């Protein structure tokens, strides 16, 4: 057990930092610290351009194997890459679902042909992916999928509705969980499809969020087509694929997320210093709690990542989502309490305030998406502690 980085690691750290310094400039300067969750509407076109720049520099998909264009980085180097990317203010990645979720799923479960066709577009920043899991009746109970896929004329025809689909309006591909066996229920009879969004029979409608922006959408399918060569796994085995994909959600990018959190905490502390709120003992307690929570999170993430070789999620991995989402939600509230009355005033000229207001509001969703708090606690109590399962 050791946390020090080697001299070679530190050299790599400098390499990343220098690349960021040399490239996150000029037209990209405005992207610094922009475009994370809750700020997805910031400069989408420019961020796609940035993704291509990253790819040219060889900094996209750094954990993918080299034969598929990645860098096959060691864990230590991945940690360093994500930390330095975030430290430099690298913008939120529009391509993160491709790089972090569907890419690894295709690598693990896709056919050779699928790897050839889909991976380069993700890596090079040409294709953007969104996740078509949730439906009005299938949220926490994800297996309650009603969207139908019927095999006709050598193609899968898809009809139904997805909801809460993040960034569908900026994406050209969607992965969809649909029911392919009529009358099947629950986990059985599902299919995992890769579908272009730009085709007849697909309609994307933005949903306005409590933040006032529209990061997620409804996606309607009316006989839209998925080609048989774009099914991952066997028809009927979609649940297995969907679950494998969810296992990729925790990854080294969590270390980058934490750097972002550090940045937010620094902004908040600076505001408290500026407006005098830092003299309030209860604010001081909460600042210290936030500071300590970040340390706990970093070490917890390093434990979880160092210990994942075996495949099953260790205890510290199971609690990670629950921990960070609650921590972040508290941070949003702390930011507003520090701003006091001013927290409810919109000021177009105050970027920091806008950012903190956006964070405050968006963090309400941190404890909902990617498994609600209640579902997380069910998972922990059942899988880590072995308590009886919920009735299904």
């Amino acid at each position, binding site marked *: *057990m*050791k*946390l*020090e*980085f*080697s001299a070679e*690691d530190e050299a790599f750290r400098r390499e990343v930092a220098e690349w960021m310094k040399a490239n996150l400039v000029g037209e990209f300067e405005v992207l610094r610290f922009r475009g994370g969750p809750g700020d997805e509407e910031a400069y989408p076109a420019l961020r796609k351009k940035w993704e291509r720049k990253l790819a040219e520099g060889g900094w996209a998909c750094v954990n993918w194997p080299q034969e598929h264009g990645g860098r096959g980085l060691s*864990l*230590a180097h991945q*940690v360093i890459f994500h930390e330095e990317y975030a430290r430099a203010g690298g913008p939120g990645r529009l391509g993160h679902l491709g790089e972090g979720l569907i890419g690894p799923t295709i690598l693990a479960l896709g056919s050779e042909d699928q790897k050839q066709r889909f991976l380069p577009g993700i890596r090079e920043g040409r294709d953007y992916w969104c996740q078509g899991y949730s439906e009005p009746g299938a949220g926490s109970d994800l297996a309650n999928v009603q969207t139908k896929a019927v095999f006709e004329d050598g193609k899968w025809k898809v009809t139904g509705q997805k909801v809460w689909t993040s960034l569908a309006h900026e994406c050209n591909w969607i992965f969809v969980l649909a029911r392919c066996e009529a009358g099947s229920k629950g986990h059985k009879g599902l299919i995992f499809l890769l579908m272009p969004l730009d085709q007849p029979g697909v309609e994307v409608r933005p949903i306005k969020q409590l933040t006032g922006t529209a990061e997620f959408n409804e996606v309607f399918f009316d006989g839209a087509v998925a080609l048989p060569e774009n099914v991952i796994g066997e028809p009927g085995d979609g649940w297995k694929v969907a679950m494998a994909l969810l296992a990729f959600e925790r990854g080294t990018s969590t270390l980058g997320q934490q750097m972002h959190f550090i940045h937010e905490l620094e902004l908040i*502390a600076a505001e*408290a*210093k500026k407006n005098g709120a*830092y003299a309030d*003992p209860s604010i*001081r*307690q909460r*600042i*210290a*709690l936030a*500071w*300590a*929570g970040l*340390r*706990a*999170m*970093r*070490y*917890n993430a*390093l*434990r979880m*990542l*160092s*210990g994942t070789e075996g495949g099953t999620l260790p*205890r*510290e991995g199971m*609690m990670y989502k*629950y*921990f960070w989402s609650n921590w972040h939600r508290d941070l949003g509230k702390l930011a507003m309490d520090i701003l006091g009355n001013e927290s409810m005033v919109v000021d177009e000229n105050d970027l920091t305030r806008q950012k903190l207001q956006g964070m405050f509001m968006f963090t309400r969703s941190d404890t909902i998406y990617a498994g609600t708090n*209640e579902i*997380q*606690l*069910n998972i*922990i*109590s*059942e899988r*880590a*502690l*072995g*308590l*009886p399962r*919920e009735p299904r």
Partner: protein
Amino acid sequence: MDFVLNDDQEIIRASAQSFLNDHSDSPKVRAAMATPDGIDTALWRQAATELGWCATDVPEDLGGLGLSLVEVALLMEQMGQRLACLPFFASAVLAAGALREAGDADRCAELLGQLAAGEVTAAAAFSADDIGWRPGAAAATAKQAGAGWQLDGAARCVLHGSAADLFVVAARDEAGALRLFRVAPNDAGVTVSRRKTVDETRPYAQLTLKGAALAEERCLSGAADATVGMMKATAQAMVALAAEQVGAAQSCLDITVAYVSERKQFGRVIGSFQAVKHRCAEMMVKIEAARSLALGAACRLAVAGPVGDEDFAEAEAAKFYATDALFFCAQEAIQLHGGVGFTWEYDPQLYFKRAQATAAWFGSSSALREDIASRVFGQ
């Protein structure tokens, strides 16, 4: 960078666990609690001398194993899990740590060797009330008297003080420098009295010094000011104690999960009710966060030279996280056991008392947070 236990560390952890499972179960803890010194002396002899626990992080040239705070933390976690009635924290962590980090190498070598070998057990008197002590505090004043020293003062809550062979006392001299002294219980001017404690698994003693006359070589820190060294020793001790608290919290969860998996109400085990399941899961979240922080801080301090502000703050964070986790888990353990959770016979009460007893060490959670806030705001 690799943040999993290596093979040697895993062996240390697992063998300590099985040793304590065999030799420090609940009946044994309860028997040791009732003895005059509150120590399981047979267990201590084995752990300290045969298993060499006290030698863990003592340098090799002094007869130690030359391991680090990480290994100490692993042992502490296991001792916390079983609430073992041992003076390990008092002697091997607090007293030996102060000598290692703030002592004069020549004057401390022999004593550190004896502590490492488990031949001698020391207690630490670092401030007047000991509870809530911070680096730089002193329990006594030291006046130059002839060729030696005269010490006056008192420490009211010296851990495991009544059975210690000697005390390491922090005293401030006339020039305002902090010094460490070796004091024996039978020195003239020294009185030691055991105090009855609520957490009977770890008793305190009061140490009173009234004109205690000590020869020059009893000043273990030599001429140097001990403050900086004590800062490091304190940081290490906070992390070791945090690891112990994590172990105790883990036990609270384990006994609770076992209980709610057996106990039936309304025709089903109570562990199948979501309100109960979720509370157990919350316990685990707090424990794992505290464990990550304690291990991370241990790794960090293991390679730190003199501790910086940031190192110290992390140790404080580890301590308050573990303190809060243990209190939460002990309280939930009582609640989820229902009526039996309020009885002497069941173990949650032991953990609950340990939780409160350790809460104040090195400062309350809110005091530690205030310290961290001062650093964040650059004050």
